[in-house]
């Protein structure tokens, strides 16, 4: 497949692998966090760990939208669907995230709630137009990649005067989460970040500069293809060897320093920062998420239906929180692969194929067996 196969080429991968092995200093460790679930997935699916020397270790970050969604947020959506009888639309994996009372949106659907999996915010708008007698709520989740389409939908709904459409806004911000990880007390040692791909196409590379300048952590923005990831790892190894900390861009075919200004303007017009947002794993993080501006309050499902957020603690045995902070690896969780499996996820990291646990379970668990 043109423009994709080039970034999955086995021979090039072996070259980069050889360079990493040659240049990585055997007397030290390289602990690199890939922030995004997209990278976690690529690393696992293509077996990239097999192409890295043992002293270059990838730590999975929290950049998986459904993984960082706390139980209380899913509960809110379920309450809307069950108690308010709305048509609840959301993206893919979100329907499988475990919530309170042994429910998930998928199970709520099986119990009669009207939950619909959609591919685009346009589908949610269409549901609202097609069902004028019913309320349609879009559970809007995701990092900066999925936020602009939500902004577009809100503006369209406002322009059309759609009265039966609203969103439950769980859009979150990448740089805030990276700050939170570095601020974790007794936190994980990280020597550098593989920076987000799609998120960076929107926000640009500039927002990562404080991580290099203030925290002294190298950041290399990388695409989601396996060769992108490997090249970024090599670039990080070089920065670390040189004692440098800079924001470098491997994904130049899509990312600029400034990012997509039009998308940024659109988001700024529709959304504003939330003072506080609870993340799974990272706890309450100030200025880390978005809510609708008061001008668009009519589209805010939290206000419209008065469904307050109620914090719910994670399952005690579940290590998702430590895994999302990069402090534990999936296989270090007692219930990994036994009680908690992709069929019956206890924690959110076992839900999405971008989640650290699901990726390791589905693609990498032969390593423990060996």
């Amino acid at each position, binding site marked *: *497949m043109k423009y994709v196969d080039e970034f*999955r080429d*086995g021979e090039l991968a072996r070259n980069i*692998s050889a360079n990493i092995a040659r240049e990585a200093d055997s007397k030290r460790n390289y602990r690199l966090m890939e922030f995004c679930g997209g990278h976690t997935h690529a690393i696992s*699916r293509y077996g*990239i760990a097999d192409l890295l020397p043992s002293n270059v270790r990838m730590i999975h970050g929290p950049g998986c939208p459904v993984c960082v969604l706390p139980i209380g947020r899913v509960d809110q959506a379920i309450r809307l669907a069950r108690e308010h009888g709305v048509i609840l639309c959301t993206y893919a994996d979100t329907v499988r995230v475990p919530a309170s009372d042994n429910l998930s949106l998928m199970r709520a659907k099986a119990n009669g709630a009207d939950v619909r999996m959609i591919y685009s915010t*346009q589908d949610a708008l269409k549901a609202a137009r097609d069902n004028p007698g019913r309320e349609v709520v879009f559970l809007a989740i995701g990092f900066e*990649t999925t936020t602009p389409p939500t902004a577009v939908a809100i503006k369209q709904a406002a322009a059309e005067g759609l009265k039966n459409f609203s969103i439950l806004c769980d859009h979150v911000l990448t740089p805030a989460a990276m700050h939170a990880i570095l601020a974790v007390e007794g936190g994980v040692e990280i020597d550098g970040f593989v920076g987000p791909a799609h998120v960076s196409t929107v926000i640009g590379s500039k927002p990562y500069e404080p991580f290099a300048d203030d925290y002294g952590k190298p950041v290399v923005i990388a695409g989601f293809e396996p*060769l992108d990831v490997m090249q970024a790892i090599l670039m990080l190894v070089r920065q670390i060897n040189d004692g440098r900390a800079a924001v470098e861009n491997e994904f130049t075919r899509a990312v600029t320093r400034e990012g997509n200004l039009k998308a940024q303007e659109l988001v700024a017009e529709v959304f504003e920062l939330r003072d506080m947002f609870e993340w799974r794993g990272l706890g309450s993080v100030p200025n880390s998420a978005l809510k609708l501006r008061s001008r668009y309050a009519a589209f805010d499902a939290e206000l419209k239906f008065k469904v307050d957020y109620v914090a719910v603690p994670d399952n005690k045995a579940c290590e998702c929180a430590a895994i999302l902070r990069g402090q534990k690896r999936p296989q270090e969780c007692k219930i990994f692969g036994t009680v908690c499996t992709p069929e019956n996820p206890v924690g959110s990291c076992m839900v999405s194929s971008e989640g650290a646990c699901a990726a390791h379970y589905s693609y990498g668990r032969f390593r423990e067996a060996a």
Partner: protein
Amino acid sequence: MNTVKPNYTRALDIKHGRVDMSHGSGGRAMAQLITELFSSAFDNEYLAQGNDGATLPHADGHLVMATDSHVVSPLFFAGGDIGCLSVHGTINDVAVMGAKPLYLSASFILEEGYPLADLKRIVDSMAQAARDAGVPIVTGDTKVVEQGKGDGVFITTTGVGVVRDGIHLSGDLAQPGDKILLSGSIGDHGMAILSQREGLTFSAPIVSDTAALHGLISVMLDSGAKLRVLRDPTRGGLATTLNEIAKQSGVGMMLHESAIAVNQPVEAACEFLGLDPLYVANEGKLIAICAPEDAARLLEVMRAHPLGGAASIIGEVQEDAHGFVQMTTKLGGRRVVDWLAGEQLPRIC
């Protein structure tokens, strides 16, 4: 003078008519639907017996029986429809047991209000598929459910076949060292369906691979290669079917990604939706596991058949207490190819 013709029944209005509850009531309307739509299309001597069941001739060998319900949506898709699919699916289930498929039954659940014209297209497609395969539909049943309680048409087909002496295929016979062969590209059927589902706003030139595989299987059996397992990787795709075999046989497997063919539009559509073609359904492909010394010969026979032109050896069976199906990636790494967990859902970003 009375001009009314005795015994005259107005013909079924196939062009404009719709299924109604009377078509499932057991009365005259049902009899008419069966005669004018089903019997005339499926026409064969066993069906013509007109009884509640078909009396079939004596057959030599062990009997194999398989059944399959079809609830595909949309009912018509690029490369086929629920009609031919329901014939191919069951023929394949019988054939991968090493049997020669002989007869089919067909049971219809129709939704009130479904257009007769569309039903006729489906029935004609079934009849054509059965004729092409040389496997007659010898008995059937029709039920009608109220509007909103079905999805247009559901079809269950059951097939009977006969295995000749000396052939024994089973999912528990794979042995370490055996080769794993695949008859062609994967993911075509599933992506043809998915790309036509409502709500997806892209179109792709992807055609379902739905086909009856008993012809291909027959030449494979005749080749004399020591076949251990044959299976068609339908729902859950190649990955799920191989995991089933690994579990049944208590073995592991090592696949090679570069040997597994995926048509470019299928690959692109999967990429677009965040799906893995290894888990996407096929309706005209088979997996064969055979003794290593016979793999090359079997491959040659498969490639000489129109439905096996793109066949390849995709991996080996190996000893593994954990029963892992693994794969060497094109990139040079290794991964587990796990069971499909739940439904394959697109990823978010």
